[in-house]
């Protein structure tokens, strides 16, 4: 990814938009009794598109904003999302193939892993309460929502970052512009992530 001032401003705006959407919308809607958590999936997608450094930096920022807006303990989510973004970026940089199933699985794992690690942190720092068994289905359901939301989130983030992506083909104006993301998620002709990008 080529980072210019304009690209950085786009990324900043997108991070802010996603963090506000998380707090104002996704946290407050429930399906089957569980809310949706998009921030880990977003950090992972940034990593898959921009590499480990972008993933780690964006993940850190997501963690900071998410916690600051909801008065969570600062730092824990920063470090967890940093790791999520970094690992996703590392996967891309190793030259492993990034296709649609990879995006879905990465987002699901990112959500589940973040929840488990933050939960373990809560337990390690100590709280004097009993754990409910209903926590397990909630964790799984929230990871499932992460998978469901991976495609639209990937399409949104990819669209905003397109000008900065290396080997991104020149903008093609097609009438069916909304369907473009499906083409982009199809396996590329060549090998490696650059071919996909």
């Amino acid at each position, binding site marked *: 990814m080529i980072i210019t001032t304009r690209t950085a401003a786009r990324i900043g705006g997108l991070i802010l938009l996603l963090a506000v959407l998380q707090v*104002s919308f*996704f946290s407050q*809607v*429930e399906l089957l009794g569980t809310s949706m958590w998009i921030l880990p999936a977003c950090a992972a997608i940034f990593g898959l598109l921009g590499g480990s450094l972008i993933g780690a930096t964006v993940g850190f920022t997501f963690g900071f904003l998410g916690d*600051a807006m909801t*008065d969570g303990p600062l730092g824990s989510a920063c470090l967890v999302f940093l790791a999520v973004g970094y690992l996703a970026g590392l996967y891309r940089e190793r030259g492993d193939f990034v296709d649609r199933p990879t995006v879905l699985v990465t987002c699901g794992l990112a959500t589940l892993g973040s929840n488990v690690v933050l939960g373990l942190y*809560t337990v390690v720092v100590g709280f004097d309460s009993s754990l*409910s068994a209903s*926590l397990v289905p909630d*964790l799984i359901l929230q990871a499932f929502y992460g998978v469901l939301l991976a495609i639209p989130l990937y399409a949104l983030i990819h669209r905003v970052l397109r000008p900065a992506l290396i080997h991104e083909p020149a903008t093609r104006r097609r009438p069916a512009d909304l369907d473009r993301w499906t083409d982009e998620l199809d396996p590329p002709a060549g090998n490696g992530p650059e071919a996909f990008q």
Partner: protein
Amino acid sequence: MYRKQVRRRRAVLIGLIVLGFVLLTFTFGSGSGGLGGAVGTVFDPITNGASRALKPARDLVNWFDETMNARGERDRLQRDLEEARGQAVAGQVAMEENRQLRQLVGLKKAGKIPDAYSPVTVNVTGRSPTVWYTTVNVNAGSSDGVAVNDPVISGDGLVGRISSVSRSGSVVSLISDSNSAVSAMILPGGAQGVIRAKVGDPRTLVLEFLDETKNVTSGQTVVTSGWRGDGLSSLYPRGLPVGEITRAPIDEREAIQSVELRPFADLRNLDTLQILTGGNRG
């Protein structure tokens, strides 16, 4: 050139990790601290505006969830209604008797909210997204007279307390939060205990440290006890309804009896709340 890039990447990563640990250390056990509070203050107007704008979309999604729950809830409510009708008649007689007795001893007219408190009505504008941190954001802050530790109630009962305040918004720690502890008593009978969360299940709370000699049964009501003594007092006023006992296992091997209760307030679907400002703020 390549080495320089690698060094720069490493420096950024290490810097972020160190910053993360610094934030963790300096804000440990105190919410998001001053820095988070400042950021929260900046973004409060944005999240408040976004929350209002997105309410129709939120309501639409929540409608599906609520419809699925509604059928089971209807049957339960019909049973509750039949029971409540019987209790209502008895309650009206008791209220009238109570009012007359209070007049006799010269006490003020009693309500659930003591006169010392001024309720401020607020709307929920955000909520902690994880299943671990149980807080909600509301759209009233220090400019409305809200202060840390003010009790927060819904139309059904106790919801939690204010854990941090900015100028235009506040954060409410719910009674389902792992750090929450509410002194409470059971009616009738007056057995006292402490309500703790059952983490991950906001529909269940645990009432601990009950006197094992007191007989507790399902269906009894739990209210805040609002104790005072030795210069200390509870954050919550006496008599706020909290929940209903759902499971009272009799286990004589346990020295400390604990029972489960269902909170009256639906902690997963909070919308309009009241903050009781101006009272005892611990």
